[in-house]
């Protein structure tokens, strides 16, 4: 009995850590997506490629630095110069470096911080690359281009061996191996700390004149441009910054699995699910994103845990059912409740004297076309049965 109790205690812990880790990761991704789409109106369907860049930073750059230190320390590293050796000797080298880092804690810690910083920079750079073709064009062209570039980056990541081992994937040295206990717990704690820091950073950026500028770009970029602001540069900066944050998420998940392979970063998990979290919770405010994230992750974990019961009810494989659920929820949310669970509100910027501003309509209806702002408000009042009523003439 004690063994069963002990084993369930271990399993209980593992599930909790797993859920907490995924929750932390997807909260960061969803907040970054909310920053782009909910506030600045940049529909980024290429988050998967930003996350994968973080993973590739760890597997291509940081691992090489660690291996170089190990080679200089003469602990018996195997060669890793050619593609074949990179894949074949990877596990042995990683094993050696884990022992090395276990003794040199400062080295491990500094590598961790370096990888987060470098991941952010590479994500920033990747955001610049993916914004080059289409940031000037309309939203639909932007969506097409971003999906295309995400696919292209995935093909490159799958086939180029020195990035992340091609189709075989590669193990990554555990930079937190100086920690005497479970590697996953400390990675989960680090993820949640980074999540809180990201929340503060994004909140400060939003509740500031820059946040108001982003809202202005979303609502009516012609006016903003006529006042003299460079709309294209603002949208590009937003995309680059959010791409950097998503890359940090990629770094963290590489350390959680201690393994990087391109199929960890498929488009369905890293683009469509965060979009669903955003839409369900309500685009435009952080609490809504948080709720959407919690609901979706709870739903996915429940599906995984009760897989056998569901499979007898649904006669085809559950992975298909999950994708159908994703699509159905997206459509249902968009048709019935496009504001999400927590609708958007005006930005609260301390220092602005709201009494001197023109009173503006704060009911945001995501469904109305952005090109014609005069249609906003009328449809919403007609559906909800209140507010301004427009008589049909």
């Amino acid at each position, binding site marked *: 009995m004690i063994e069963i109790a002990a084993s369930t205690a271990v399993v209980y812990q593992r599930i909790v850590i797993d859920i907490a880790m995924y929750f932390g990761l997807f909260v960061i991704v969803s907040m970054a997506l909310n920053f782009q789409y909910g506030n600045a109106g940049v529909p980024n369907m290429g988050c998967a490629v930003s996350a994968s860049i973080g993973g590739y930073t760890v597997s291509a750059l940081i691992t090489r630095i660690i291996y170089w230190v190990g080679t200089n320390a003469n602990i018996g590293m195997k060669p890793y110069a050619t593609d074949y050796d990179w894949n074949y000797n990877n596990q042995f080298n990683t094993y050696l470096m884990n022992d090395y880092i276990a003794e040199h804690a400062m080295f491990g810690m500094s590598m961790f911080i370096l990888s987060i910083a470098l991941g952010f920079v590479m994500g920033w750079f990747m955001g610049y690359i993916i914004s080059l073709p289409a940031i000037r064009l309309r939203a639909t062209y932007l969506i097409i281009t971003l999906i295309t570039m995400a696919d292209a980056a995935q093909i490159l990541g799958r086939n180029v061996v020195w990035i992340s081992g091609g189709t075989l994937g590669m193990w990554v040295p555990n930079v937190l191996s100086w*920690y005497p*206990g479970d590697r996953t717990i400390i990675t989960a704690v680090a993820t949640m700390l980074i999540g809180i820091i990201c929340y503060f950073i994004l909140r400060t950026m939003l509740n500031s004149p820059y946040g108001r500028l982003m809202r202005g770009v979303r609502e009516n970029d012609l006016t903003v441009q006529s006042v003299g602001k460079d709309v294209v540069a603002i949208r590009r900066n937003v995309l680059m910054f959010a791409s950097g944050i998503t890359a940090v998420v990629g770094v963290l998940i590489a350390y959680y699995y201690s393994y990087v392979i391109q199929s960890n970063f498929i488009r369905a998990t890293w683009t469509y699910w965060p979009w669903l979290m955003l839409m369900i919770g309500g685009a435009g405010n952080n609490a809504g994103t*948080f709720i959407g994230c919690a609901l979706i992750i709870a739903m996915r974990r429940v599906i995984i845990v009760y897989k056998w019961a569901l499979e007898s009810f649904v006669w085809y494989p559950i992975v298909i059912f999950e994708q159908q659920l994703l699509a159905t929820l997206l459509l249902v949310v968009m048709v019935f409740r496009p504001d999400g669970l*927590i609708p958007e509100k005006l930005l609260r910027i301390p220092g602005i004297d709201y009494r001197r501003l023109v009173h503006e309509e704060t009911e945001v209806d995501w469904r109305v076309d952005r090109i014609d702002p005069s249609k906003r408000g009328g449809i919403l009042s007609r559906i909800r049965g209140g507010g301004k009523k427009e008589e049909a003439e």
Partner: protein
Amino acid sequence: MDWDPILFWVMIILWVITPAFIFYEEIMERRALRKEREEVVAQD
């Protein structure tokens, strides 16, 4: 000493603090906005 249970509870605490903080901020902001809007309306 065994750090794992300590970190486990740290993680749980963070998991509770983060949403509490987010919602607290959100409610404070909405309350402040409503107060200012009532000031504006009362002034007209």
